[in-house]
């Protein structure tokens, strides 16, 4: 965690000093305590409610108890027997991890050139990259749907991974450019003086130093890919390529008379677990990535 601390203190050194300076003077105001508790309830209660519903079955489901009267894992058992869900989990893992890996590999080259090397039209290149990230998914989905059906990539995993790069690459590049900028030039220059080429300096010196930045970019890209929904439902037609958010959205149609709310809730809890774990483990890195570049303007 100390590396994450280091990257953050580069951004907000003054805030840290002030925190310490103020502490002894002022205590925590009661109104502030109320605000803090309100924020915690606001953020966590809805997810708690989902977990609560996922632990109920049968008659309990039609009651609105705050705590399940007869907590049971039946919904979880049934969701792990559902092939559509299991396939979805597998597809989501493959698609999200591949998208993240490709995006880091290709994006880190571009980010390094933009952050460090002499190059013409840098502003234009970065502006193009950023404007692609603002394209509405539907404007990509329509033509890619037609294209994929023509060339046979419709309803395949590569057919999802390729268009996922439209949002993954700009995200990765933007975060990495601001991280590469934070790395002191001295070490790189020392390597260049010792006869290393620019590319060797990048690979041997910058990449290891930028590990926290790469982790940040990777985590944010993974979360975005795991979350993606529009392309996932437009470019797939069966559970062989559907990712898990798309699979869940189609559960609702599976039973005609009763909404399988218990099972859907259990599935929703399961697919949120990897993301919540990432947040718990890498809170500082995620915040640093989200705010990278946003406060310097």
């Amino acid at each position: 965690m100390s590396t994450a601390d280091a990257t953050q203190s580069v951004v907000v050194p003054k805030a840290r000093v002030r925190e310490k300076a103020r502490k002894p003077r002022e205590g925590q105001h009661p109104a502030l305590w109320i605000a803090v508790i309100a924020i915690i309830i606001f953020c966590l209660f809805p997810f708690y409610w989902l977990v609560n519903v996922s632990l109920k079955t049968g008659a309990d489901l039609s009651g609105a108890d705050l705590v399940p009267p007869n907590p049971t894992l039946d919904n979880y058992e049934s969701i792990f027997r559902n092939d559509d869900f299991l396939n979805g989990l597998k597809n989501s893992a493959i698609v999200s991890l591949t998208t993240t890996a490709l995006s880091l590999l290709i994006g880190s080259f571009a980010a390094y050139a933009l952050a460090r090397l002499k190059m013409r039209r840098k502003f234009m290149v970065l502006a193009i990259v950023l404007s692609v990230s603002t394209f509405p998914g539907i404007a990509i989905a329509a033509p890619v749907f037609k294209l994929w059906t023509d060339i046979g990539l419709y309803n395949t995993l590569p057919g999802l991974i390729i268009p996922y790069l439209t949002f993954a690459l700009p995200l990765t590049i933007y975060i990495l450019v601001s991280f590469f900028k934070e790395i002191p030039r001295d070490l790189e220059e020392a390597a260049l003086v010792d006869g290393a080429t620019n590319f060797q300096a990048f690979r041997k010196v910058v990449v290891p130093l930028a590990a926290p930045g790469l982790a940040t970019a990777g985590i944010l890209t993974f979360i975005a890919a795991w979350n993606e929904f529009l392309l996932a439902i437009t470019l797939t037609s069966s559970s062989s390529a559907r990712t898990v958010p798309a699979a869940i959205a189609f559960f609702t149609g599976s039973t005609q008379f009763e909404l399988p709310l218990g099972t859907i809730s259990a599935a929703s809890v399961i697919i949120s677990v990897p993301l919540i774990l990432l947040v718990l483990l890498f809170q500082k890195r995620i915040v640093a990535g989200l705010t990278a570049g946003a406060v310097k303007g």
Partner: protein
Amino acid sequence: MATPVATVGAKRARKGVSADKAERRLATRMVAPSMILIAIVGAYPIGYAVWLSLHEYSVRTPGLSRFAEPYGLGNFEAALRSDTFWSAFVNTGVFTVISVTLELLLGLAMALAMHNAFKGRGLLRTVVLVPWAILTVVTAITWQTIFEPQLGFVNTMLNAVGIPGGDTVWLGQSPHAMGVMIFADVWKTAPFMALLILAGLQVISNEVYDAAKVDGATTWQRFMRITLPLLIPAILVALIFRTLDALRIFDLPFVLTKGAYGTNTLSLEAYEELRANRLIGLGSALSVLTFVIVMAVSFLYIRFVGGNIRSLTDEGKA
């Protein structure tokens, strides 16, 4: 890649000018893969969408299933004449304005609280990231269970407290469904707004406040005259990010209502024509219209954060 780069290194030792050239060549090579991919998966589809939108093409109509017929602006005319497009346009606008405004106000309040809370700030940061990290589809399902008429938390509370309306079918009638959608969006993204604003708060120097305190400024005056003006850049970036996302909203209405009860949005309308009705020409025209609207807003975005891009690409400063 190693061999040409190695010779470049040797050249660098001999001559500064060719090293400069070599560096530029390396930069081009390193940027090229990303730019080519972005062109293939980003620019090309948009161009193709424009082409499709100018042709009559339907997978359903037998004669049109293989070949696209030039159709001029017919698809756009059909789209602009249809009530569904305009209602989707209005719904998207209403959703964007209300949700982004609420997110800004709530995000600002949360950021101020987090900034002043000495105890539990780390915990708060983690807690606040939970709604942000939860998938939009799961967010929709979560709020569905909360607003469910019988087993939902909201109606149960209304009944328990004795407020009328405890039998409301929230997702089954007109302004209510939009209300739930806005609520869900605010829950998911106000924390993101709070984190961006918090980052802006943390770079404001403490000396400014101390000086104002010495001069006898009240807390409110300090907020209005110092904090808010200095926060404007951070707020603008957050606002633009959120506006672009809100204009593209798709997941929430798809899962909550499938676009019924006044929640149909531009992206959802284009999707329906494309997938459900198999009208590729009309669907493409609708997605091009959505694209134009979003790009108009993102043009503002580039203008506002243009300074940021410049600082990231600026050679001299680093």
